[in-house]
């Protein structure tokens, strides 16, 4: 949401964490204007007013190994998303965009980025199914699962409302937070990427996040 009277704001404007993310979907659509405000080292993602602390949780990888999120991702730019494999739209679009951009970045940048998808549908997302789904995008993407209580706790630790099952029958959907959280080497998320973020946004921001160099809003 570009605004002439707040030139320091990012392309999407500054927002409060968590609930404010909702507003960004509309903001993104409205903010896709010209390129004039998108220069320099400002992030194009949605910069948070208050950064979020990297959550402390241990879940299980698709190989069945425990994954201590804080320890495994220490020092990396870490993109954390809560999604599910029966999701036809938001989830695969995020993963495809991130993968496409990582594959174009130089290895010294791409190698500093970890992508973690935590399932919000553990009943249908078996480890094998989650692994195969992620492999369509990048074999290095980490898929995590666990008991419902642990998955809900991981979401709450970011201030997110835990995902909920919607509808009945085999084809049920899952309502879940649509944003990708980007943690930097300082173990904080200063910026999130809502549904609607584009490949050009990732291509612009990831090198800045890896370098730890962007202009504070």
């Amino acid at each position: 949401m570009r605004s002439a009277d707040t030139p320091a704001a990012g392309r999407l404007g500054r927002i409060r964490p968590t609930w404010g993310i909702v507003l960004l979907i509309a903001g993104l659509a409205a903010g896709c204007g010209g390129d004039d405000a998108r220069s320099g080292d400002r992030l194009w993602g949605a910069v948070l007013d208050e950064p979020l602390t990297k959550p402390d949780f241990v879940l299980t990888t698709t190989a069945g190994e425990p994954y201590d999120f804080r320890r495994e991702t220490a020092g990396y730019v870490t993109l954390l998303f809560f999604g599910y494999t029966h999701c036809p739209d938001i989830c695969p679009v995020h993963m495809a965009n991130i993968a496409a951009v990582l594959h174009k970045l130089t290895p010294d940048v791409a190698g500093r980025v970890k992508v973690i998808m935590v399932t919000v549908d553990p009943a249908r997302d078996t480890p094998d199914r989650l692994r195969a789904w992620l492999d369509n995008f990048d074999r290095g993407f980490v898929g995590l699962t666990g008991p419902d209580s642990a998955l809900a706790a991981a979401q709450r630790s970011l201030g997110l409302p835990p995902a909920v099952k919607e509808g009945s029958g085999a084809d049920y959907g899952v309502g879940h937070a649509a944003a990708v959280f980007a943690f930097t080497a300082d173990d904080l998320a200063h910026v999130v990427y809502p549904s609607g973020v584009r490949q050009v946004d990732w291509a612009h921001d990831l090198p800045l996040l890896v370098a730890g160099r962007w202009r504070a809003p």
Partner: protein
Amino acid sequence: MRPQASIALAALAAAACSHGAPPLAENTGTAVLEAYATASPAPDVSALYFTVENRGAEADTMVAVSTSVGEATLHTVETKDGRSSMRAVERLPVPAGASVHMRPGGYHVMLSALPAPLAAGDSIGVAATFVRAGTLRFRARVMTYSDLVARLEQDGADRR
């Protein structure tokens, strides 16, 4: 040339320029353009996106969509209390002179219970039924999500 005809032709030309391709199907002014399905990352789930343009003088409404593979459900995405959810849409109005663009994060057709994964390079048959135009049949090319989004971003940039 009668003025009415030339105006209609000009409108058609403008519409054609905005998409750079003839419609995939058209009847009574309701046209389908740019239909893409996604290569399925899950064995049984995928998505279909297309654009409906109403070149006529009367509103039309899409009331059904089906494909040659699996089940098709028109969805939109709604966000409430921090959660984004898909909601099934029974009727998709297309006002006279307007276009409805299915896009990631908005209207999309969910393809489920696929008998086999869709692969990039394939195409699927689609039938979309409208109140006025009746059933329009067309084919949708299958491409990866990445290629689809890149194409739609380009298309969106052109349009903006």
